C-alpha cells in the first residue's frame, strides 16, 4: 500500500480525478449546448410559417417540381426522423448546402465568419483600449467634467441607433472628408488578389506581403470598427465606471490611501485589480455579442459577415445556413465563456483553490 501511495504521490489521484471531472464537465456542457442549439434551431425552422421547398424552387414552380423537391428534402418523413437524419449528417461534418449561395454551408461559414471575426475583434479592441481608461477616469473624477464627458460619450454610443451612426460616419468620413474608403472589405481593384489563409484579410495580406492590399483592408476596416467600437466602448466604459466606483468606496482603498500609497497604485493595483473579474465577464460578453454579427453595421458597410449571412438565410428559409451559423455563434459563446473562466483563474487567486 505504502509503495503504491508513494508512486501516485500524495493527493495526485484526487487531482487527476478532479481534472478528468472538469474536462468531462466541459465536454458534457459542450455536447448539451450543441444538442440544445441544433434541436431548438431545427424545430423552430420546421414550425416557422415558411415553406423551405418554395425557398428552393421559387414561387412559380409547377406542382411536379415542388413535389419532387419536397421528397428530396425528406419533408414527407416524421419530424423526429428528419432531425435524426439531420444530426447524422451534422456529426459527419456535413452541414448541407446553402440555398442562397449554392455552396456547402461549411465553406460559407469559413468565408463569412472571418469577416465578422476581423470586425468584432477590432471593435472589441477599440472598446477595451478606450472604454476601460475612460471608465476608470470617470470613476476617479466622479462628478467632475471628465466624468460628464465620459457619460455623454457613453450615452451616445449606447443610445444612438448603430444604423444611423454608421450612415453618419460614412457621410462625414467617407463622403465629406474623404478620410475613409466606402463600404466593402476592399476596393474593387484589390479584390481577389490575396490568397485566403485565415480569411482575415488584414492578416492574409500581411502574410502574402501585399502591403497595398493590407493598407486598403485596414482602411476599409476603420469606419465599421469605429462605429461598432463606439457601441462596445460605451458599454465597457459605463460598466468600468460603475465597478470602479464600488471599489473606490471600499475601506481597503481608504486604508491604502491613508498608508500613503501613490494614487496610481491605489487605483490600478488595488481598486482596478478587484474589478478585473467582472470586467472580463463584460468584455467577454461584448465580444461574443459582436461575433454574432452586427446585421445593421454589416448592411450599411456592405460587410459580408455572418450576421448578414444568417439574416438573409432566415429570409430565404435557408435552414441549413441558419443552423450552421447558429452553431458557430453558439460555440463562440461557449468558447468565450471558457476563456473567461480561465482568465478568472489568472487574475483572481481565490478561484484557483
Amino acid at each position, binding site marked *: 500500500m505504502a509503495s503504491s501511495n508513494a508512486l501516485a504521490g500524495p493527493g495526485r489521484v484526487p487531482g487527476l480525478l478532479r481534472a478528468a471531472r472538469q474536462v468531462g464537465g466541459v465536454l458534457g456542457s459542450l455536447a448539451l449546448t450543441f444538442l440544445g442549439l441544433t434541436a431548438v434551431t431545427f424545430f423552430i425552422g420546421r414550425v416557422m410559417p*415558411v*415553406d423551405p421547398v*418554395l*425557398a428552393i*424552387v*421559387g*414561387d*412559380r*414552380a*409547377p*406542382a411536379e*417540381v415542388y413535389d*419532387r423537391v419536397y421528397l428530396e428534402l425528406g419533408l414527407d418523413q416524421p419530424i423526429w426522423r428528419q432531425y435524426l437524419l439531420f444530426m447524422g449528417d451534422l456529426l459527419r461534418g456535413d452541414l448541407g448546402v446553402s*440555398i*442562397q*449561395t*449554392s*455552396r456547402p454551408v461549411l465553406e*460559407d461559414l469559413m468565408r463569412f465568419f472571418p469577416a465578422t471575426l476581423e470586425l468584432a475583434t477590432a471593435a472589441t*479592441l*477599440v472598446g477595451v*483600449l*478606450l472604454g476601460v*481608461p*475612460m471608465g*476608470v*477616469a470617470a470613476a*476617479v473624477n466622479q462628478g467632475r467634467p471628465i466624468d460628464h464627458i465620459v457619460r455623454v460619450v457613453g450615452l451616445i454610443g449606447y443610445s444612438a441607433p448603430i444604423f444611423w451612426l454608421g*450612415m453618419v460616419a*460614412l*457621410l462625414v468620413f467617407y*463622403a465629406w472628408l*474623404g478620410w*475613409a*474608403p*466606402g*463600404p*466593402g*472589405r476592399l*476596393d*474593387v*481593384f484589390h*479584390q*481577389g488578389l490575396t490568397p485566403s489563409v485565415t480569411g482575415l484579410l488584414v492578416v492574409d495580406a500581411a502574410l502574402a506581403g501585399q502591403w497595398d492590399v493590407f*493598407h*486598403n483592408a485596414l*482602411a476599409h476596416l*476603420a469606419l465599421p470598427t*469605429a462605429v461598432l*467600437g463606439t457601441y462596445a466602448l460605451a458599454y465597457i466604459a459605463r460598466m468600468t465606471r460603475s465597478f470602479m466606483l464600488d471599489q473606490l468606496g471600499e475601506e481597503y482603498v481608504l486604508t491604502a490611501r491613508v498608508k500613503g500609497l501613490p494614487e*496610481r497604485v491605489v*487605483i490600478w493595483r488595488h481598486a482596478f485589480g478587484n474589478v478585473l473579474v467582472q470586467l472580463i465577464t463584460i468584455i467577454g460578453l461584448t465580444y461574443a455579442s459582436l461575433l454574432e454579427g452586427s446585421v445593421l453595421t454589416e448592411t*450599411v*458597410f*456592405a460587410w*459580408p459577415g455572418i450576421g*448578414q449571412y444568417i439574416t*438573409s438565410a432566415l429570409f*430565404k*428559409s435557408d435552414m441549413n445556413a441558419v443552423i450552421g451559423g447558429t452553431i458557430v455563434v453558439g460555440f463562440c459563446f461557449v468558447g468565450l465563456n471558457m476563456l473567461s473562466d480561465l482568465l478568472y483563474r489568472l487574475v483572481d487567486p481565490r478561484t484557483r483553490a
Partner: protein
Amino acid sequence: MKIIKHTLAAGAIAAASVFAVPQASAETPPNMLVLGQTISDLITLDPAEIFEFSGGEIANNIYDRITTFEPGDYETLVGGATESWQISEDGKTITFTMRDGMTFHSGNPVRAEDAVFSLRRVVKLGKTPSFILTQLGWTPENVDDNVTVTGDGTFEIKIPADISPGLVLNALSATVGSVVDEVTVMANEVDGDLGYAWLKTNSAGSGPFSLRAWNANETVILDRYDGYWKGAASMERVIVRHLPEPAAQRLLLEKGDIDIARTLTPDQIAGLEGAEGVTIEDAPKTKIVYLAMNTSEGPLADPKVWEAMRWLVDYEGMLGSFLKGQYSMQQSFWPTGLFGSISENPYTLDIEKGKALLAEAGYGDGLTLTMDTLNVAPFMDIAQSVQQTLGQAGVTVEIVPQDGSALWPKYRARRHGLILAQWGPDYLDPHSNADSFAHNPDNALEAKLTGKLAWRNAWADETITGMTEAASQETDLDKRAVMYRDLLTAHQTGSPFVNMFRSSEQLAIQDGVTGFVSGPTFDLVFYDGVTKE
C-alpha cells in the same frame, strides 16, 4: 492621474492610427464597369436553373441564347447562337442553323451539338424554369427524340404540344435557351448530374463576358471575352457589387466608387435629380402590380364586386405621388408596346360607381375583407391607398403585410382574400402572362396548378381559358396579335384581377458612362455596349 492621462492618450493614438491609413482613389478605372445593386437573390448561375433577377441578368452577359433580342428592340426576335431558322408548314418542326465561327470562352467551337445538349439538359434536370420548355410537350423521356442534330451546324426541334411556333421561338429567348459548352460542362459532371453542381457556381458560355468570381452577398466579377462574335466589349471587367443599403449606394455613386446605382429609393432618386455628374434614366420593365380576389367563396366570387373594385382604386393619385417615376399605368396584364398588347386603361377612381356596383351585388351596407401583401415598399403604400378608397365605398379592409416566404405559400394554398402582388413574364411572349393570369383548365384544389395566378384565385372562365389556348396555338403572327388583344380586353373587364401599374427601373448613372441597357425583362440587361469617356 498621470497614468490615466497616458492611458487615454495611448487609446486615442490607437484609434487615430486606424483612421490614418492611406486609402485608394475613389474613381472607378476607365476599363471597368462597377454596378451597385442588391444581388442577395442570386442563388445559382446555371442557366437550366436560374429564375432570379440577378441570375438572369448575369447569364445574359455570359451566354448566347438560341434566339434573343437586340438591345433596344424587343419586338423583333433575332438569332443569338443561331443565325436563322426554318419553320415547317405544319408549324410542328423548326430547323435552326448555327452561327458560324462562334467559340466558347474555353476556346471550343459553338456547335449544334451544344445547343441540343443545352435544351435536353434543361428538360432532364427539371429545375423550376424547365416548364418554359416542357410546355412544348417535351419530357425527360422524349426530349432526345424531339431535339436532334440534323447536320453539320444545324439542329431541329419538334413540337408535340399544340403551341404556336412563334411562341416557341420567343420561349427560346429565355435564360433556359442559353447554349452551354457541352465539352466543358460534361468534363465537370459528377454522378450523372450533367454538370449541375459545377455550373451553379461556374460558367461555360460564349457571351461577351466570362465569370471570374461570384462571392455570395458581396460581388460578381466578370471578365471580358475577347473572342465574342459581336466583337469584344469595351469594358475589360464588370464588377457587380452587393450594396444592400440604398443610402450607402448613393454615397458611393456620388463619390465615384460605382458607375451605376441600380436600387436607389425614390427619394434618393429625387435627391439626385439635377445633381452634377449624375444622370437619371428610366427603364420600363414588364412587372405588373395587380390586386386579385380569391373567388372561392363569399363576396369575392361575385363579378359585380370585381367590377366595383376596379373603380375603387386611385390609379392617378398613386402615380402622381409615391409611385412617381417608378411605375406607370397598366390596366391589362401584358405591357403596352409589346407584341399583342393593348393601350386602353379604362378605369379611374369613381367611388359612386363602385358603391352602386356593390349595392347591385347586395353589399350596399358594406363588407369586410382582408388584403395580403408584401411588407415592403411600394406594396404597403399601395395597400393603404386601396384600403382608404375602398373604405369610402363602405368596404373595410384589413391589411396583412408579410414577407414573401410567408405570403407565397398562403397564396398557393388559396388561403387569401384580396392579394396585392406583382408578376413579370418569364419570356417576352404574351402567352407567358396569359398562361398565368387567364388560363385555368382545372379549378379543382387537387389539380394544384399553383404556377397559375388564375388557379390561385380559384377563377376558371371557360371562354377566357379557351381564348388563351387558341392564341397560344395560332401560327399566323398577325392573327395571333389580334387574339391577344381580344383576350386582354376580355380579361380587363371580366376577371377578378385589378391590374394597376407597370414598373420602371430607375438608374442613376455617372456622366460619361453610356451604353448600359436595361431591357424590359430582368434577363435582358446588356453590359457589353457600355463605354466610358
